[in-house]
């Protein structure tokens, strides 16, 4: 199967597409926390790295099957997310963002100093187990799960908390409990994404998961349109492909990338697909069809 794939798609493009898929999984998790529930977090990369290191060490040193270590990495990230969330989620707005930023940096420094993670040198010789097929399957699973969640009782509770936490609590929603659950699920997705990342690059370095990576994922979500699942997918795709398309400008690449971020924020303040979700897309198509037939 993978050989057939290689004959159809160039390995470089496969790598780029895989990266897009991996980031979509992480961005969907962040969209649940920040977009749907309204909780600002600047430390998402930390959960990516927890999942990545857990999964990588499990397959490399304990010879676990890839799928099992992937799930365990996700669960480990979720566990840390919940442990952090319980004290920290009572903070609001920027202060929550700042605290999660601090957590992200602590995790990075810890991974730089731990023996089992290879320290600052990094963790190498991770078996290659991610491929376009299993990444795609997980992206589809994650999208379906997120769409179902968004339109469930749980999703509506999260939106209520996002719009007005005090009012939501007055309506009998246990805001803290819902926020912790959303945080846990979002971190689980980050952990899965990290596991795929580790088994794609076959090498991990704690400095790849600094706060800039967290912001990169936040950019995906905000550029696409906060709270919009199609937006998250489009935003991630555009921003992951942008540096690849900009390769021809070489060293000016990241400069243009920074400029691009500023310009997009000025000219598309609500994101590319702000306020668009799958249900509304379908409804609009139906309305169009109805208008055409009448």
């Amino acid at each position, binding site marked *: 199967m993978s050989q057939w794939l290689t004959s159809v798609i160039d390995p470089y493009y496969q790598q780029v597409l895989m990266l897009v898929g991996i980031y979509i999984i992480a961005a969907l998790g962040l969209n649940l926390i920040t977009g749907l529930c309204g909780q600002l977090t600047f430390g998402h990369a930390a959960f990516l790295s927890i999942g990545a290191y857990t999964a990588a060490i499990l397959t490399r040193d304990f010879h676990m099957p890839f799928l099992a270590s992937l799930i365990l990495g996700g669960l480990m990230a979720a566990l840390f997310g919940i442990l952090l969330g319980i004290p920290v989620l009572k903070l609001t707005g920027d202060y929550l963002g700042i605290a999660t930023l601090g957590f992200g940096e602590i995790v990075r420094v810890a991974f730089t100093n731990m023996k089992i993670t290879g320290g600052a040198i990094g963790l190498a010789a991770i078996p290659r187990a991610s491929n376009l097929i299993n990444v795609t399957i997980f992206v589809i699973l994650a999208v379906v799960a997120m769409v179902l969640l968004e339109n469930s009782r749980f999703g509506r509770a999260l939106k209520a908390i996002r719009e007005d936490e005090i009012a939501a609590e007055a309506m009998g929603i246990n805001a803290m409990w819902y926020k912790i659950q959303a945080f846990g699920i979002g971190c689980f997705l980050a952990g899965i994404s990290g596991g795929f990342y580790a088994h794609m690059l076959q090498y991990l370095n704690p400095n790849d998961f600094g706060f*800039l990576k967290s912001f990169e994922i936040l950019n995906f979500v905000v550029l696409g349109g906060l709270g919009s699942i199609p937006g998250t997918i489009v935003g991630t795709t555009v921003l992951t492909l942008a540096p690849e398309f900009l390769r021809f400008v070489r060293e000016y690449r990241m400069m243009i990338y920074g400029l691009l971020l500023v310009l997009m924020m000025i000219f598309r303040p609500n994101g590319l697909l702000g306020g668009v979700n799958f249900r509304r897309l379908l409804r609009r198509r139906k309305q169009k069809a109805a208008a055409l037939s009448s």
Partner: protein
Amino acid sequence: MLLQQIINGLTLGATYALIALGYTMVYGIIQLINFAHGDIYMIGAFIGVAAVALFHQNFFLTLATAMLACMVLGVTIERVAYRPLRRAPRLNLLITTIGVSIFLETFMTVLKGPQPTGFPPVLKNVTLRVGTLEFSSIQLVILLVSVALMVGLQFIVKYTKIGKAMRAASEDYDTASLMGININRVISFTFAIGSALAAAGGVLVGIYFNSVSPYMGVTAGLKAFVAAVLGGIGNIPGAMLGGLLLGLAEVFGVAAGFSTYKDAIAFTLLIIILLVRPTGLLGRPIQRKV
């Protein structure tokens, strides 16, 4: 030995405080975490290097050049990138600051290469001895210059008309503008002062560690930001207190044997303070309105 560590901690802390003031003033007025602030500090250090290397200026002229140039830079960035987003969602503004930060870092990398450069000698480094106490003349200069700048800032904020306008704007942005305060001018002025202080910090740190690099703004900026939050973001004395506390905490943390975890000390302190006093040491509590 203890006193020695305190001096080291205060020197480091004073530079954090200088950068933290810019974060705190901007946050106080427009509730924006300006992630590009650390990069202004970096640019300030590079301008300092250029001023010495190209024009052989003395220390005070170098400092003044860097501060003036960064003032212009800070105001320009605010005018071009942040002002169009004044009424946009706050998260967008935040991402814009990250975009600017990436832009400045890569601009400097393209210009000078990623590797650190030394700071050309501009101050004589003499070791001063008072009893058993040892400290360098550079440390003394850093402390004196930082204190002078902070006193100057305190004077501007407390006793000048623009300072009064700044305080009014940080109290209530909309009401202040209704009272005839030109908000745009106040914000530009805030960015100018904050950037100048960051540039001073950059030059001092560049001389102290004799190393300047395009990515020096990332860690220093984050730590200064932590200092601002520790003291209560939006609060000027709080930023100074936070900076000094952070410097002391790091020096004592290293002395206690946590040197490999040095960069985590600041953030651990941050989370603890946020959990105990969510708005920082000198911050006012947030009111939850129904």
